[in-house]
């Protein structure tokens, strides 16, 4: 699944660790999310959406969509 996490993080000048701290996950998980190696659970996707004040579909894009 494609996503805009890296772009949104860069806009705010946050490091991967800073984003990880805000989401209460590891830096490794943040990296896996950004590179599309891991798709988040629905609760984590909502947490990410709330953090960036966006809708889930504004951040994540279905590959088949």
């Amino acid at each position, binding site marked *: 699944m494609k996503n805009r996490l890296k772009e949104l993080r860069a806009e705010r000048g946050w490091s991967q*660790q800073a984003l*990880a*701290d805000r*989401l*209460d*996950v*590891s*830096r*490794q*998980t943040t*990296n*896996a999310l950004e*590179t599309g*190696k*891991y798709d*988040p*659970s629905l609760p*984590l996707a909502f947490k990410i959406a709330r953090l960036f004040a966006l809708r889930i579909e504004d951040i994540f894009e279905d590959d088949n969509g």
Partner: protein
Amino acid sequence: MPSQSEKRSGKKPSAQTRYIVLSLLAMAIFTLAILVLTPLASQNETLTAIGFTIVSTLPLILVAYEFQRYVRALDELQSQIEMQSAAIGFGLALLIAAIWGLAEGYNLVPRISIAMTLPLGVVLHGAVRQIRLWRLG
């Protein structure tokens, strides 16, 4: 008090390090207990054998406790990796134990206690976890 993410990021001694060190230590004690106590237990009365069994089991209880403590401290991806690695690691250990058992039946290899599957499983679990973490980058 460090936050969950601080614990996960490795700023403090991580739950992973604690689990790896304690589980390997416990498995070493378990292996030693089996190697030393099993021949002794067979020469002693039932009560002594029960005592030896309990002593040998204590490290396993420690590993089980540490594992649930460790998994609860992880985030969702780490937890998923841990559970999948455990399934693959212990699955491989069972496969090796079954093959070893067959080879024992044909007198190809020395007889080893089936309980040795557990330390093997812990080591394979750790190896699979590290490979998966390395592949994630």
